[in-house]
């Protein structure tokens, strides 16, 4: 049962990745090949002797091929963003939690600042200042997302640094860097992985949103978001343009979320520590901390 929950979404995601990697082999057509005379043909249309399973778009390009190639953008951006923002966010969170004091205050206020800038504005500013590119999309998304990791890492480090094995390491005479690397980070990492997995789905959506408003990847590179954006105009006349990329996106986000849930259930440290042991400590009340699920699940935009 538990294996099921991880395995099935993992396989589906692996398929997505495989499709992305093998796009040139799988895609029936060049995703950027325009054929203006064959534009806006519906699914199952055969135009000029070419069979378009999912139809063609406003430039007569094959929708299926574009969806296949579009997966590359979605997956690459989502993965890169999670890695960059995760690494950056966790580092800051760990530093804040370990050093505490003014440095923590500065970092956490920075997180507040990052969280209170409207995302759309930030996206435009980043593209305006740095120019449009896939890398900058990642930078832009990372600028918005790092505080999620920082906050969770920070809270987790504050908790972990009071744990016996950390105090033990201090008492042994281990330097701060040693303790952070060997004891704190491994403790924070699974949590960061959980957050990262949950974020992955969101990042797919975010990338699509950016492409949707024209700030993502550059045309003619196919991206699900830009396909949806183009398709929006044709929602009444050429329904397939918005529907199929939307389904591809929906499927990926859904499976990533499922995987995130499964990973969280496996890694959430709270679900692993035997509770009865903790209860024995005399005189200790339960801390009024918010449940970890709150922190993990609450943010989505």
């Amino acid at each position: 049962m538990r294996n099921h929950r991880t395995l099935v979404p993992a396989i589906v995601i692996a398929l997505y990745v495989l499709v992305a990697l093998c796009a040139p082999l799988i895609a029936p057509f060049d995703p950027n090949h325009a054929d203006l005379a064959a534009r806006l043909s519906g699914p199952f249309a055969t135009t000029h002797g070419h069979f378009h399973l999912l139809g063609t778009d406003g430039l007569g390009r094959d929708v299926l091929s574009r969806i296949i190639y579009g997966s590359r953008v979605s997956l690459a951006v989502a993965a890169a963003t999670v890695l960059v923002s995760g690494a950056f966010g966790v580092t800051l969170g760990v530093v804040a939690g370990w050093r505490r004091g003014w440095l923590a205050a500065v970092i956490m206020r920075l997180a507040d600042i990052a969280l209170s800038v409207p995302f759309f504005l930030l996206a435009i500013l980043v593209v305006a200042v740095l120019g449009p590119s896939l890398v900058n999309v990642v930078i832009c998304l990372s600028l918005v997302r790092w505080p999620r990791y920082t906050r969770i890492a920070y809270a987790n480090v504050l908790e972990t640094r009071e744990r016996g094995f950390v105090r033990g390491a201090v008492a042994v005479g281990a330097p701060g860097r040693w303790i952070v690397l060997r004891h704190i980070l491994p403790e924070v990492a699974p949590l960061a992985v959980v957050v990262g997995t949950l974020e992955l789905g969101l990042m797919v959506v975010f990338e699509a949103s950016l492409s949707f408003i024209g700030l993502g990847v550059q045309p003619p590179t196919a991206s699900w978001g830009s396909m949806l954006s183009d398709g929006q105009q044709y929602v009444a006349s050429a329904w397939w343009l918005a529907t199929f990329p939307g389904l591809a996106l929906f499927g990926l986000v859904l499976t990533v979320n499922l995987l995130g849930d499964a990973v969280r259930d496996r890694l959430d440290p709270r679900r692993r520590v035997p509770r009865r042991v903790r209860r024995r400590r005399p005189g200790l009340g339960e801390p009024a901390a918010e449940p970890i699920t709150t922190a993990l699940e609450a943010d989505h935009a």
Partner: protein
Amino acid sequence: MRAGAAAAVCRYLGIRLGQALIALFGVTTAVFFALRLSGDPAQLLAPQGASQADIAALRHQLGLDAPVWRQYLDYLGNLLHGDLGYSYVQHEPALTLITQRIPYTVNLALAALVLSAVLGVGAGMVMALNRGRWPERVLTPLVLVGQAMPAFWTGILLILVFSVTFNLLPSTGFNGFDSLILPAVTLASLSAATIARMTRGAVLEQLDRDYIRTARSKGAGTARLVTRHLARNISIPILTVLALEVANLLGGSVVTELIFAWPGIGQLTVQSVDGRDFPLIQAIVLLAAVVYIAVNFVTDIAYAVLDPRVTTTGKAAGP
């Protein structure tokens, strides 16, 4: 004792307020300078055939030819007098433009919040209390679907179905209650799913707590467990989510407002950013930050009210 508690809350909130002001200052400063790197409103405003001199004149008129630090000091000075500046594009005080739009965004966000809170909390409770039984099996896929639907796609599909195909509901603009339905549903769908998952988790976590066992050992039934024990204890985690959702809804309203041509702050944001309407952007950012901070603030107060432990230990749940 009451007075003491109030004093503790005040002190605690005072610190939070101070931190919030610092964050506010940081946001406005960062945005101010980033904006000036990002494009020249005069170029956008000038007619296509305008000459260099025309544009320079316009730039001068807008005060954009002054050194950036000077502009910044002026901005801060005006801010202290409550002056948020004039929109370059619409030639109205930024404050007026924003206040015109606030009711619409609040209307939409509030409708979505109520919708998602009611649906989300309800579904989450039902799922948790019926763990492993059919209500959970029915709701879980719905929640998963809700979470995987990007707002812009949901919006398009809703328009396709309800406006284009069946012509039941208006797809754009503000024209009474029926035009609120589609945007609110679009905006609420993701939030409702998030809240549902969260509520489920919170309820399950609370159900696992010892005090629930105590209550059961007293002979309490499900109804009493939910109303007397769970309700208040899950209110804290749920409040945390709702607070975040308020921020998310206001943020998410940008996309929704664009899709449904809703005349709110989100649309104004996009327009002002597109037009590099600096004073308006700055005002909106200030507003967004204030809202974000205010929501956190209200949440903190609510924590203190809901959880008597907060006032005495001086720390709220969460970082």
